[in-house]
């Protein structure tokens, strides 16, 4: 899977966000906010083809988490990205 290439992660002060312009007639444009670890992961994954194992690996290498915690965090994050339509179709 891949992150949508048309989305740009923005940092304002200590906040991270993504603005997704609605393409429908009615403007349902959305602002997503990311915490700092999700934002960091976004930067690592952007432009790349990746799977859940890549996320787990990134988490384990860079955060003080055990593998089970990393797996469960990666699943939650991926599910969020999926549900919010932030992945390429």
């Amino acid at each position: 899977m891949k992150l949508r290439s048309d989305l740009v992660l923005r940092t304002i002060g200590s906040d991270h966000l993504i603005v997704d312009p609605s393409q429908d007639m009615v403007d349902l444009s959305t602002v997503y906010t990311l915490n700092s670890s999700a934002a960091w992961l976004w930067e690592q994954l952007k432009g790349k083809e990746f799977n859940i194992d890549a996320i787990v690996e990134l988490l384990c290498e860079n955060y003080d988490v055990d593998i089970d915690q990393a797996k469960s965090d990666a699943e939650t994050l991926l599910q969020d990205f999926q549900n919010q339509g932030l992945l390429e179709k």
Partner: protein
Amino acid sequence: MNLTKSSELSQTRYRIAELVLEFNHPADYPLAQLLPSFRDFQWLDSADTTDISITVSLSKAPIPEDKGILRTDESIAWGDRFRFYEKEDTFITTIINEQGNAAWYLQSDRNFEHSLLYVPESTADEQTGVITWMAMMIFGQASLLHQTIMIHASVANHAGRGVAFLGKSGTGKSTHSRLWLQHIPNTVLLNDDNPAIRITDKGVLIYGTPWSGKTPCYKNEQLPLQGFVRLQQAPMNEFEWQNGLKGFIAVLPSCTSIRWNKELFSTMNTILEKIIAQVPVGYLKCLPDAAAAELCHSALFPNE
């Protein structure tokens, strides 16, 4: 898109927020007379490069059967008469004329740098209204390529610094500006509806434009931008600063960019991101009274 420059065309140029907008039109078409709100913005230096061009044609519009994807038919200004389409690498805007027997037809490239406008049978008043509005729509998109955003705001000029009041239509932006004019000394109006904001080496500046809603206030002036204030009607007066993300989200809905050109939309967000890093954003819950203006003024100008 095929834009041929005929020798019979005259150029009328304007400079708005440091961007040169050029109309190419038949020599006998009284463009400058039709655009009275642009008068202060006329730009006679023909050596300067053109940033945005609009070619005006009085020929019959070559309206194609297939105008592409209908992106929106909502317009506060034009109601049912308006349509906006995306077709291949162009955007098409149509407005039915007042008589209802023909249409205004505007074809713009993706970034709105070059547009071709066909004028149907219409009165001078209608021509003034439509061309003024279309130029605003075009400027709002094309300016994004030049570190400039057009916003929906009423702007007070207090002691040579601009304060931009934001809010949905009907919130009382103009009313709040008027309260400043009445109760805060040394305050005049810069623009009442559509100022432009530009990032320059001298900081973030706010500019008057030929577009000012219902208030005829078309000043070719620029001021350092002191701050944005989003307004909300309330039974009391309360001011709160909005930092980081909150500030960005408070200003974003007031910024101009079509959503269907994702590059332009992203550029708009990038410019706003830079502006927010330099300009504070406040949120004012307010009554339409003098105390609201005084509270807002003391928050934005604490040293006065």
